[in-house]
């Protein structure tokens, strides 16, 4: 049976030390982002000023006297949903664009789509996001009864910035898959193109895309933190890890060591964890790709891949 891109328990041993470290860091991050939120209100004023960590306030309190664990947890949660939204958006849109371009490899549509994503890619990603937020402002936008807050706009702006990378990865993988014998055979049997693409090609395109998604999560956590640090993220009093660290910057002389350190540590957990996990996942996927042919129906033939495996990951260009 062919391997599928699911993270089964038996696959975890392939993660290696770095992968396991990443997994533990991500789990710690998720623990803070979920269980930490049960600790209390992130906006309630509970002390008169900053207080060091104690049993009542394990992360201490901030300069206005709010529980820092509750704020860090809320910030981590906010960062998480912004990152999931942005990466999810980018995976869906990028994969769709990339697969369409790959399916039409060499054609006008391929050229049009890839020139489009390269145009977006021409701007450095962080600059692109700042440009978009700068154009739209940080206030709420109202579309009739629907209000779009800055959090969603930040998520989508980060997501749009990611689209080119996923599109390129998906296109490269699609081009490789479309040259495989099983696709040729399925076409010969008269299987509709839609079924080939969605039922056969997609499952082989997803692994490298998801590998990149982990890495993109790390960048998204970093980007969201950076934008909030610059005041372009979610507005006060809603905390994010970025604006917590920014606020803590004003307390450097106040001996409140916990203020920057603890939210900053959680931010590092997220960035480092997703990064290591993404790299380990990507490496595992590449190793798998060298051992087996990638046909979901092909029965795991020992293979010399149609193209070198590295070309299936990130390097394929138009």
């Amino acid at each position, binding site marked *: 049976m062919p391997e599928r891109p699911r993270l089964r328990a038996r696959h975890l041993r392939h993660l290696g030390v770095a992968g396991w470290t990443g997994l533990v860091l991500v789990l710690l991050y998720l623990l803070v982002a979920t269980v930490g939120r049960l600790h209390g209100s992130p*906006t309630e*004023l509970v002390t008169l000023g900053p207080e060091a960590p104690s049993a009542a306030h394990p992360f201490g309190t901030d300069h206005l006297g709010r529980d820092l664990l509750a704020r860090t947890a809320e910030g981590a949660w906010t960062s998480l949903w912004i990152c999931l939204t942005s990466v999810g958006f980018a995976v869906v849109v990028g994969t769709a664009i990339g697969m369409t371009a790959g399916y039409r490899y060499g054609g006008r549509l391929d050229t049009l789509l890839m020139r489009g994503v390269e145009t977006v890619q021409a701007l450095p990603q962080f600059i692109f996001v700042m440009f978009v937020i700068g154009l739209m402002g940080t206030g709420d936008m109202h579309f009739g009864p629907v209000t779009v807050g800055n959090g969603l706009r930040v998520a989508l702006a980060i997501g749009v910035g990611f689209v080119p990378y996923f599109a390129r990865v998906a296109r490269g993988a699609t081009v490789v898959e479309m040259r495989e014998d099983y696709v040729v055979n399925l076409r010969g049997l008269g299987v509709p193109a839609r079924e080939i693409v969605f039922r056969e090609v997609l499952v082989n395109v997803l692994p490298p895309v998801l590998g990149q998604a982990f890495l993109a999560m790390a960048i998204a956590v970093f980007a969201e933190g950076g934008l909030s640090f610059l005041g372009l993220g979610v507005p006060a*009093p809603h905390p994010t890890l970025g604006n917590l660290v920014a606020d803590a*910057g*004003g307390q450097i002389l106040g001996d409140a060591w916990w203020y920057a350190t603890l939210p900053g540590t959680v931010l590092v957990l997220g960035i480092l964890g997703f990064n290591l996990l993404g790299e380990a996942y990507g490496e595992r996927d590449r*190793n798998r790709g060298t051992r087996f042919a990638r046909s979901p129906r092909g029965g795991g033939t020992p293979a010399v891949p149609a193209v070198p495996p590295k070309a299936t990951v990130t390097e394929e*260009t138009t």
Partner: protein
Amino acid sequence: MTPGPWWARTRTTGGADPAHAGPSRRGFLGMTAALALGGTGLLTACSGGDSGARVADRHKDGVLRIGVAAAPSNLNPLDSGAEVTRWIAEAVMESLYAYDDQLNSVPLLADGEPQISADQLTWTIRLKTGITWHNGAPFTADDVVATLVHMLDLSAGSEWITYMLGYVQSFEKADDRTVRIVLAKPYGLLRSHLTNLPVTHKDFVTRKDTMMGTGPYKLDTYVPGQSFTMSRFDAYHGGQFRAPFADVPGGAAFKGIEYTVFTDGNTRAISLKQGKIDLITSPAQTTVQKLKEAKELAVTSTVAPLDVLTYVLVAREPFSDENFRKAVAHSMDRDGVLQRVYGGRGTPGQGPIGPGELGHDQALSVYPATPDLAKAKEFLAKATTAKRDFTLTVGASQTARDIAQVLVAGWAKIGLNVRIEQLAGGPWSNKWLSRDYDMLMNTFSSGFTSGPANYLTLAPASSTNVLACGYKNPEVDKAIDTVWQATDPAERTAALRTVDRILAEDAVIFPPLYPELVVAQRTELSPVNPAQLKICRLAPHTLRFTG
């Protein structure tokens, strides 16, 4: 084939690729962490040292160095009374009259008191002779007239126009040393304005890239948004210097003054502590205690005309409902803002006029320092409006954001859902001018436009003002007219008290607190004059090195 972004660059199994030579992502992360730790240690090690010796060595060049939080984009002091502009301009520009240390208005460029006609509509002002501009040109009546023309030019965008429009009818040069101002109606505040309005050379009134004054220091160079360098003006007439500085030739003790912009409060404080600068404005609240503990530093905190402007738009829901306004005012966490944001340096707010301003009523006590939630809920229950949410629009500073966060947490206790909107100065002012807001809040110091008073803060309460918030009360309108027209200070003070009380009781203008003005300095510098600080002036040209 292109390498792609670094984050997407991974090790391949296909052999070495020169394009990908260099550290792996894991290696990069490790190096970054090591560099961060090492760098922090190195910076910490380098941050010590004897600041006193550094200051003594630095003072050999005779230059006073001041750290400020922001720099003006427009250098023309005729256009703005904000301290960001005027602190830079203090030693460069002068006005017809100036405040002495008892805060009396005394002649500076004017040669004596103005002659006021019996009907109080014509003011004739004689000018001093022998005064020269920094470019060497003589100071004449043409310069004063050009200054007034610019100020009243709608297209020039000077904020002073709001003080003069409707009152100043015309002005003319009677002769080279005499200016005549004709008023449409009696205008008692004119003397205050002539004491605060800087006068500039007639060829420089529209210039936004430089300052041309008659003061003891001239602006030599500046780097936009970063620094301003001034040198002593050797031909200075000496008008601003009285004892004990009269012994210094020309009165000015420093060879030059440098203003450096440190937008971050910590950087300002650390630079002062390390002896890189002699004086800082607006130290961050969180740094004040540390600065006080340092023996080589002195912190001065003064009651001054410094306001937290707080306006509600009475013209629309929910603040059109008086009970809603009172519920908001009674649940305002004044003490929370005072303690948490200002470290206790200030007074809980009541009406629009603070203790550093003419007309303040110390006995006025409409609202408690800590929220009276029971009373607030009573008012809320009586409110006819069904709205329980509004937007609080504040300025872009950390202080403004902190004030808003404390207040919002307090209002949440009576079930009000308040959204915070932070805007930079321009968009914030546009909201104010276009009356497109629920509640507006920002910090503002009026010392450079009103001396020991704040007349602008009352403007939205007047039903005819361009900033009118929709509140209509003939008694308030009449009292505000008296404030602007009366020549008798006692009459003006009484009118100000009336306005202050009514606006507080009707919950139209109810700031959370009246903060104090704080500056910090090296002890090797003579203390900042507390009398001048009461009107927001640093008066750097009157200081000197003492060690």
